[in-house]
């Protein structure tokens, strides 16, 4: 988090500082965003979100219809159809729960239902493990959802509020996942600056449904409306399906501009910004070596960069906040002058050549004028800690690459017993 009061030129509103863990910060953001329907199913480490929200419902602090479904599959389905009925919806999941939603993730984005979901990133079974890695959401990167990975609880809170505006933007109508690291964020208390209820409500606003061409050639609201009946989710074969999927991609291409715009508007209100909303650069301007990562590991990496900079080593960091859509131009501009880059993946693509972030970053940099060396480190699977000395080791490897011009093995594992 950067405090940007001066930069954005406003005196941000008075905010309360609360001690919240990541899950509680998410629940509070959902409460303040005046969500109409929350449908969810418990799974560690997302459970606190649902528990806190249940308390808000039980105490009459929200006017939300809360549906405790019998599975994640039904939870997302209920959000999807409630959203199609025209209201604001939220759910949360992790790991196996997200995997169970897999089918409906595609249906949600295909139906252009702007559902917002928090993911407490957790490893996938087997062996069963409740701790952090990104295997769950990375496995859903092609599902047509916007994916935002946050670094801390403050950003989880801020991003959920922004997510409703992004998802419901009538040029997009794309569902959004806000991903926070299991336990490192979901269960760890932090000081979180909280906006007043009224400020959030005003920022998020009412959901507006766009008009679409109806069955009788008349423009009607894009929702299940008995006054203006439309058919949603029809059978769609080779003569139209492709065009509909192409439209989804078009919405994704419009998303970076809107994500940035909403991020900046929020910065104006809150005094907080996260890079440009898509990527956050840290000491990257003159960096010769850099790491790229997403999630809470960025916090640790920043501390390492500070140490290296104190030793006059030109180290930097790129944190990918928005992974879908991939901010290709921003990544390219941020990294094109770096000489050696280590991409850190908290998930593995079994049998592939490196992890999913590595694929994207290296692919993006293929066209760079001075193509840098790009290597990959798979780290932190199943909640394995990523301490500063491990990250320091990665920067040392990058220095060696610079000195020797020898890359060696491009895909490595960090912090594992071999």
């Amino acid at each position, binding site marked *: 988090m950067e405090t940007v009061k001066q930069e954005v030129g406003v005196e941000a509103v008075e905010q309360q500082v609360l001690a919240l863990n990541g899950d509680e910060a998410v629940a509070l953001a959902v409460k303040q965003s005046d969500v109409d329907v929350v449908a969810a199913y418990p799974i560690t480490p997302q459970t606190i979100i649902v528990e806190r929200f249940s308390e808000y419902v039980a105490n009459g602090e929200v006017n939300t219809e809360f549906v405790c479904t019998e599975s994640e599959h*039904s939870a997302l389905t209920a959000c999807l159809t409630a959203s199609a009925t*025209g*209201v604001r919806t939220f759910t949360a999941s992790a790991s196996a729960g997200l995997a169970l939603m897999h089918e*409906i993730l595609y249906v949600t984005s295909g139906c252009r239902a702007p559902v917002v979901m928090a993911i407490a990133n957790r490893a996938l079974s087997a062996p069963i493990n409740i701790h952090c890695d990104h295997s769950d959401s990375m496995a859903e990167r092609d599902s047509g959802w916007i994916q935002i990975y946050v670094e801390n609880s403050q950003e989880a809170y801020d991003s959920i509020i922004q997510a409703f505006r992004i998802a419901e933007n009538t040029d997009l109508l794309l569902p959004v996942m806000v991903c926070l690291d299991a336990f490192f964020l979901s269960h760890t208390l932090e000081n979180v600056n909280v906006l007043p209820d009224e400020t959030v409500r005003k920022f998020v606003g009412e959901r507006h449904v766009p008009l679409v061409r109806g069955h009788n050639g008349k423009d009607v609201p894009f929702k299940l409306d008995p006054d203006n*009946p439309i058919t949603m989710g*029809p*059978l769609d074969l080779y003569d139209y399906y492709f065009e509909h999927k192409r439209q989804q991609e078009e919405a994704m291409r419009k998303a970076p501009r809107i994500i940035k715009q909403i991020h900046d508007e929020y910065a104006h209100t809150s005094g907080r910004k996260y890079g440009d909303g898509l990527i956050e650069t840290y000491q990257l301007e003159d960096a010769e070596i850099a790491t790229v990562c997403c999630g809470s590991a960025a916090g640790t990496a920043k501390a390492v960069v500070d140490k290296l900079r104190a030793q006059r080593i030109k180290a930097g960091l790129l944190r990918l906040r928005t992974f879908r859509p991939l901010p290709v131009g921003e990544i390219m501009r941020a990294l094109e002058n770096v000489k050696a880059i280590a991409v850190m993946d908290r998930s593995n693509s079994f049998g592939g050549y490196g992890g999913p972030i590595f694929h994207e970053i290296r692919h993006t940099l293929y066209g760079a004028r001075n193509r840098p060396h790009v290597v990959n480190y798979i780290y932190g699977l199943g909640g394995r800690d990523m301490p500063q000395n491990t990250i320091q080791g990665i920067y040392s490897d990058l220095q060696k690459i610079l000195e020797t011009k020898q890359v060696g093995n491009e895909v490595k594992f960090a912090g594992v017993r071999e």
Partner: protein
Amino acid sequence: MWKFTAKEIVEKPELFTSGHRACAGCGPAIALRQIMKATRGPTIVTNATGCMEVVSTIYPYTAWKLPWIHTAFENAAANASGIEAALKVMRRKGKLKEPVDVIALAGDGGTFDIGIQALSGAAERGHDFLYVLYDNEAYMNTGIQRSGGTPYGASTTTSPAGTVIPGKSQFKKPIADIMVAHDIPYVATASIAYWQDMLKKARMGLEVEGPAFLHALAPCPRGWRYDTSKTIELARLAVETCIFPLWEAIDGEYTLSPQSRIPALKPERKKPVAEYLKMQRRFQHLFRPPFEHMINDIQRTVDKRWNRLLKKCNMDG
């Protein structure tokens, strides 16, 4: 109790319209047409993946004059849960003037098998909606595969009548009784052969507060292998043989419906199952050695289930 005349029903606009692509003699299409005649005001319909979803909506066409949504196969009841939750909150916030009914439609595969979890969950949570199971007794949309709703002995493409195994080896799951056991306000069975009964029950399902379940038998000429003109005749014979008795359970209290009271009061009017089975080529192997004994197995099970139902309806003498 809703009263209507045939004239009123004829004059009521079709909400599930002609032009859909169902096969000739399609039972489920008849069931949908009948049920849509029972709506009482603004209504949203959701459909599981299956024959009716496919035949009614090939983009850019639609047979629906109601707001309608399909999302997936196993989640018709979850679709309804989300719609109902949205309507509830909209009413509470003053964004919706009149109440809106919700109908979920699913076939036997989407109900007996893959959709039972979502259905059970929605029933337990008590959402206010009518769930219609249009039962054509197999996965017809994918090419006649057996489901938990397929009857014993029926030949399907995944329970073919072979020389060793004569069709499906298991009896039909008593799905409507399972729904009664959820202690929901209304459960009924209906057959497309008796349209007034179907309409009354569909309306009753919409009128009760909370979940209602309507099990509608809807023969399929392609899957059951009979002439397309015989759909209604078979739907009637299923009731007359007591293979598919008609009843309703209001707050768990079973009552036999008029058409099934006939064999209950006059057992001699109860037709043998063979009359029903012989009209369908899915059962033709049962009429040849060495599997003829299976007709008796079917008769015994039908009798057992019928007698159990009579007890529940306090009509066991």
